[in-house]
C-alpha cells in the first residue's frame, strides 16, 4: 500500500530564514528556480540535502527547508562524497562559487567529478569573490582591476567547463541566472542525471562585478553571443542565421545564407569521447558565441554505486561480518 504524497509547492522548500543577499544579486533567481524545480521533479524535503562551501552563493542551504550544510571554504565536494557514499538514498546538491570551487576547492572539484559521485554541483560563477568584498577569482579575465589587483590581474583564467570535461565529467552544462526557463531546464536535467552533474551558472554580482555577463544576458546581444546546445542538432545561433562549422580541426562561424545546416558541427551530448565537449568549452566570447545547455551527458558507474556494491559483494562472499569470527581467525592460543 502506498501512501499518497502531499503535493509540495515552491514555498514549502523555503526555510524560515531571511535571505541575506544584496538586493539585485543574481543568486535570488537561482534560489527561486531551485524552489520551483524541486517539487516539480518530485523531490522531498527530507531526502534533499544542500551542501555548500563559503561565499555569498554558499549561504544557499540556509534558505532551503531541506537538510543542509554550510561547510567550509572549498570543501563541499568532500563532505558530499562522504555523505553520498554512505547514504545513496539522498538527493545531494552542492552549491559553490567560482572561488570556492576553482580556487581553494579546485582539487576536490576535480576529484568528485572524476569519481562520478552522484550529486549535482551548481557553480555560481560571478567571476569575483563576493563575500570577501571584491577580489578577482580564477574565472576573472586577465587585467581585472579589483581590490587585490589595482594594476589588473595577471592570472590566466580557468575555464570551468574545460576543467570539468578534462576531469572526466559525465554531465556538464552551462546556463544563466536570468534565463529562467533555461536555468529550470538545466536544473532538471542535472537532477535526472546519474553521476556527478556539473552546472556552471553565469551569475551577476551587482555589487562587485556588475555586468560581467551582460553580453550573454542582454536582449540585444544575447542572440549573437550565446548558442543554445541541442542534442543531435547542428550548432546554430543568431536566430538561425549563423552556425559553427569545423574547418579541419578549427571551429569557425559561418553564415547560414551560404552554408547548409548539414555542413555544420552537430552536437552530441552522448559522445563517449570528450573532445567534442572540450571543443565546445573553448568557444568563448567575443570570438564565438558561448554555448549554453548540456555539453555532455554520458553514463558511467557512480562512486557511491560501486562502493556500496563492493560491500554487497563482500557480504555475499563471506557472509555478514561477525566479531567473534574476526577475532578468532588465524593463530590463537588459550591460557586456562
Amino acid at each position, binding site marked *: 500500500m502506498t501512501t499518497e504524497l502531499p503535493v509540495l509547492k515552491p514555498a514549502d522548500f523555503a526555510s524560515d530564514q531571511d535571505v541575506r543577499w544584496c538586493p539585485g544579486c543574481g543568486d535570488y533567481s537561482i534560489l527561486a528556480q531551485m524552489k520551483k524545480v524541486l517539487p516539480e521533479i518530485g523531490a522531498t524535503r527530507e531526502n534533499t540535502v544542500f551542501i555548500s562551501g563559503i561565499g555569498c552563493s554558499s549561504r544557499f542551504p540556509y534558505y532551503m527547508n531541506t537538510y543542509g550544510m554550510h561547510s567550509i571554504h572549498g*570543501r563541499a565536494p568532500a563532505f558530499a562524497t562522504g555523505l553520498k557514499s554512505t547514504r545513496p538514498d539522498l538527493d545531494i546538491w552542492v552549491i559553490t562559487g567560482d572561488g570556492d570551487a576553482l580556487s581553494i576547492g579546485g582539487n576536490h572539484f576535480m576529484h568528485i567529478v572524476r569519481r562520478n559521485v552522484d550529486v549535482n554541483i551548481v557553480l555560481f560563477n560571478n567571476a569575483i569573490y563576493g563575500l570577501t568584498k571584491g577580489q578577482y577569482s580564477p574565472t576573472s579575465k586577465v587585467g581585472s582591476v579589483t581590490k587585490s589587483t589595482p594594476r589588473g590581474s595577471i592570472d590566466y583564467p580557468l575555464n570551468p567547463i574545460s576543467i570539468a570535461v578534462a576531469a572526466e565529467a559525465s554531465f556538464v552544462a552551462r546556463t544563466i541566472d536570468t534565463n529562467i526557463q533555461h536555468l529550470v531546464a538545466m536544473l532538471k536535467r542535472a537532477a535526472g542525471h546519474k553521476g556527478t552533474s556539473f552546472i556552471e551558472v553565469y551569475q551577476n554580482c551587482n555589487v562587485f562585478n556588475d555586468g560581467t555577463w551582460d553580453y550573454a544576458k542582454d536582449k540585444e546581444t544575447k542572440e549573437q553571443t550565446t548558442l543554445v546546445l541541442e542534442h543531435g542538432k547542428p550548432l546554430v545561433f543568431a536566430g538561425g542565421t549563423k552556425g559553427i562549422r569545423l574547418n579541419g580541426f578549427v571551429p569557425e562561424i559561418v553564415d547560414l545564407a551560404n552554408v547548409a545546416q548539414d555542413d555544420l558541427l552537430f552536437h552530441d551530448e552522448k559522445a563517449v569521447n570528450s573532445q567534442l565537449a572540450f571543443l565546445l568549452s573553448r568557444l568563448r566570447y567575443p570570438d564565438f558565441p558561448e554555448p549554453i545547455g548540456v555539453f555532455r551527458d554520458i553514463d558511467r558507474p557512480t562512486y557511491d554505486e560501486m562502493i556500496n556494491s563492493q560491500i554487497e559483494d563482500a557480504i555475499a562472499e563471506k557472509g555478514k561480518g561477525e566479531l567473534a569470527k574476526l577475532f578468532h581467525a588465524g593463530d590463537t592460543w588459550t591460557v586456562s
Partner: protein
Amino acid sequence: MISANDQFPPTQKPSESVSGVTVRLAGDSGDGMQLLGTQLTNTSALSGNDVATFPDFPAEIRAPRGTTAGVSGFQVQFSAQEIFTPGDGLDALVCMNPAALVTNLADLKSTGILIVNSDSFEAKDLKLAKLATNPLEDGTIDKFRTIKVPMTSLTRGAVEPTGLSVKLADRCKNFFAMGLVFWLYGRDVDPTLRFIDNKFSSKPEIAEANRLALKAGWHYGETTEDFVSTYQVPAAELEPGTYKNIMGNQALAWGLIAAAKLSGKELFLGSYPITPASDILHELSKHKHFGVRTFQAEDEIAAVCSAVGAAFGGSMSVTTSSGPGIALKGEGMGLGLILELPMIIIDVQRGGPSTGLPTKTEQSDLMMTMYGRNGESPLPVIAARSPSDCFNVAIEAWHVATRYMTPVIILSDGYIANGAEPWRIPNVSDLPEIKVNHPTEPNDGERFLPYQRDENLARPWALPGTPNLMHRVGGLEKQDGTGNVSYDPHNHQHMVQTRARKVEKVAEFIDEAKIEGSMEGTLVLSWGGTYGACHTAVESCIAEGMDVGHVHLRWINPFPRNLGQIIEQFDRVVVPELNTGQLSALIRQRFLVDARGINKIQGKPFHVNEIVDGIRAFAECAVSK
C-alpha cells in the same frame, strides 16, 4: 608438508631455563628481518610467552643495500612473566651484515650472544657500511660471546637440491637464521611451516627452499660446538582466556569495527595514506563484509571532510593520519566540532616537526591535537597505551563521541602501531553496548530544535531522510536551540562555554585514574605508548625501595576527575614523555604543580632504565632540597 617431529628433532644439548629473553634481529632492508621477527613473535606467543615487539626500519622503501641507513631491525622480548616493553638490553643480537652490527652492538648486554653472518664481512660489505676495518677482527666484538655463522654459504648449500638461482637462494638466508634462533630457544616450527605453505603456495620451489634453509639453521645449532646449550622460556601466567598476537594498528581497526557493531552503525573511513597510519586504512579495507566503507581521499582535508559528511548522514565516521596530515585537518575538525557531530580522528604520531622522521616514534602531537584549531576548540582526547589497548580505546572513544555528540581524537604512535603483544580476545557479549538515538519527531512542539541539549549537553543526531526534522548546520556561530546563524554576543559566549563544558562533562563518564604502586612520594604520570616502560620502571623503583606511584592517563582531555586529588597526595610529579614536555605543560597549567619531565626526543621509545634513572635523580634531588 614436513612433519616437524621428524625433521626438527628436539635438542640433545642441555637446556637452560630462563624467565625471559630479548632478541634483536638486524639486517639489510631486503634481508627479511621483519618477517623473521614476526614469526619469532607469533611462535613465542603461541607457546604461551608474553611478548612485546619493536620493529624499526628506514624511511626509504629500500635504502641502499649494505649501508647503515638501510639497516632494518626487529626486537622482541618473550617472557615467562607479564612484560610491558620489548626490553632494553639485548640477550641476543643477530646481525646479517656489518652495517647491522655497528648500528646495533651498543644495545647488546655484556652477557649477550652475538650471532653474525660471517659470509657478509667481505671487503665490499665493509665498504658499503663505510668501515675501515673489519669489526669481527678489529676488537669491536671482543667482549661479546660471538658466534660466526657462514649463513650465506650454508644456505646456498642447503637449498641446492631445489636448483634455485644463487640470487633466489640467498633470499632464504633469513629462514636459515630463523631455524638457528628457533633451535636456540626451543621454539615450535609448526606455525612457520604453515606460514611458508600459505605464503608461497603458488611457488612450491621457493617454499621448499625456505623449508630447507629453516631446517639447515636448526641443524646447524644442534651440530656446531659454538652452542653448548639452548634456552627455554616457560609459558607466562597470563589471565585465562584465548589470546591472539596483535599489532596496534590492527587492534585499532578491529576496535573501530567492534564499536560500529556495538552501536548498530556502519563504519566510514575517510583517509589519505601516511606512515605510520596507513595500515589502519589497509586493515579496514579488508573488512567490507562488516559494512566498512573506506574512502582513500585526494588529501587529508578531503578525508576529514568526507568523514564529517558521513557523520551528518548517520555513519560511524573515522579519519586517520599522522602529524603532517593532522596539521592539515585542523579546519575540518573545527567544523565537526561546531556542528557537534560524533566522529573519530586518529593521529598515529611520528617524529616531527614537518616531515620529520616518518618511520620513528614520538609523542609530540599532543599539543597540536589539543590546540591546533582556530578559536576556542576543545575536543576530547584519548591516548592508547599499548598495541592491544588500541582496541579498547577505539570503543571508548566512539562511546564518548556519540554520548556527547562531539568529534573525539585518538592518539597512537609509531611504536604502538607497529608493535605487537598478546591480546586476550574478549567475549563479544562482554563488550559494552553503545546506545545511539536518532530522533524521529520534532522536539519542541511542531518545531525541531537541532541544538536542543540533553543532560550531557548533547544535541540530537537527526538524520537526513527523517521527515519534519529538516535543519541546516554550518560553521558560523549558531543560536543555541535553533542552530540558526547568530551574531548575538551573549549567545556566542554561551556557546563557547557550552562546548567547553561538554568536553569537561566527559569526565563524569570516564574512569577515575588509578594509582599503581605507592600512594605517596613521587608520582610518575605518563600517557600513551610509554605505559610499558613507565610501568616497568616504577616496579623496579619500588623494588629498590623507593616511594613511587604510577598513574597512566588514557584520557588527556578531560583529565580523570580524581587526578587533582591524586596529585595533591604526592610530594612531587614526574612526567616521562617522548617530547619536550607536552603533558607536563598541561599538568602544570591545570594543577599548578611543578611537574618535571623525563624527556627523550630521539625517535625511539624509552628504555626502562632511562626512566628509572630519571625518577631516581628527581626523587633524590627533591629529597636533598
